[in-house]
């Protein structure tokens, strides 16, 4: 995610809370929305909040809590809301960059001599995608059973996530099929298939 997108995502999350939001809440909401596919650590979040505050898009007030350190609650400002609205209606500029993940780059440079090892890489990648997808699926079930499936945006984002993983996995199937065709062996793997735990 580019800095801009992160910034507006955080701004959007804050805008949805009229009572304001503190860092921990924002992190939780960000993770609930994107957590399976994008990670935002506390460092990035607080840097983003600083930047938004310096730009005058949000304002933070210290909130004292008995027995615990005080925390800062952020609310969106009028200029923040204006900036968010402007950004939302800006035509998309995002260009997909398929060669960003390390497996794609490795495939560029791996030679035929290393086909067996390449096949292992492809299969490891598939295991990671499937495990992620399973976590996403289970999170979706937890949310739906808790009655939080009523937002159409949430539903659309979950469908998008499914479609992306399906596409990634379909591509890995293709890579595997082509590699196998070159080696001519279905089980051309350097290791036996044993239950692979996370």
């Amino acid at each position, binding site marked *: 995610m580019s800095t801009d997108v992160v910034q507006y995502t955080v701004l*959007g*999350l804050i805008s*949805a*809370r009229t009572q304001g939001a503190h860092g*921990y*809440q924002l992190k*939780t*909401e960000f*993770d*609930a*929305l994107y957590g399976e596919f994008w990670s935002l650590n506390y460092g990035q979040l607080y840097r983003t909040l600083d930047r938004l505050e310096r730009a005058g898009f949000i304002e933070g007030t210290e909130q004292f809590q008995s027995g615990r350190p005080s925390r800062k609650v952020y609310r969106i400002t009028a200029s923040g809301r204006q900036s968010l609205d402007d950004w939302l209606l800006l035509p998309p500029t995002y260009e997909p960059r398929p060669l960003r993940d390390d497996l794609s780059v490795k495939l560029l440079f791996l030679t035929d001599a290393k086909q067996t090892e390449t096949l292992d890489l492809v*299969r490891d990648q*598939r*295991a990671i*995608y*499937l*495990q992620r*997808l*399973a*976590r*996403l*699926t*289970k*999170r*979706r*079930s*937890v*949310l*739906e059973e*808790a009655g*939080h499936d009523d*937002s159409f*945006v*949430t539903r659309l984002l979950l*469908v998008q996530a*499914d479609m992306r*993983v*399906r596409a990634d*996995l379909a591509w890995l*199937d293709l890579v*595997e*099929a082509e590699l*196998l065709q070159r080696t001519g062996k*279905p*089980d051309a*793997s350097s290791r036996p*298939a*044993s*239950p*692979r*735990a*996370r």
Partner: protein
Amino acid sequence: MIRFTNVTKIFGEGPTQVDALRDLSLDVPARQFCAIMGPSGSGKSTVLHLVAALTKPTTGEIYLGDRPLSRMTERDAALMRRREIGFIFQFFHLIHYLDAEENVALPLLLDGHSFGAARERTERVLTLVDLIHRRHHKPTELSGGEMQRMAIARALVTSPRVILADEPTGNLDSTATHAIMRLLRRGSEELDVTVLMVTHDPVCASYGDRVVRLVDGRIVEDIDVSERPTLEEDEGAEGAVKLPRMR
């Protein structure tokens, strides 16, 4: 619950010989939900047919519980299919002139239960799949998702030990796929059923505990996907699992 030991299955001979499974060993413990994936022709469906004793292995043995299937007579195998295995297919295989209740009750009636005895069980599983309000509808009066729910109820009505599912969501859209898979998952957990499901759809497989991939009749991957996130992960945050409402 289901165990394959060094199973080979060869169809045909000579130039038309097809090695569907090659020295396959697989152990699916009781109550596990195991998805089988792989390209077409990889032997996925053969695995299901072998568990149901609809075909015999060329070499090797298959156990259901502790019983080797090779020692079973045809009659025993038919009884086992009727009482211990529930089947779910891509195209539902429902009987079109019977209503939901009758379709679901059918395995019990075939097994000699009275309609009265069958009714109680039928109502229970129809409720479980959230189809009780459609009990008097015929399959043609229902959506694809509802027909598959009816088929799941029919598979569960005998309280089988094992469910064999072949592309259960192959014919459904994304929303219905999730709904069906959630039901199958919940139903199998509530009734302590072991599930073996063939699918080409990773989303469908992601409802399992385990994904086994076959390529050319061999297991090339065996992936544990059973980790479950819980609401507790987010405990401490107010409105932890509430997703933001975006415009």
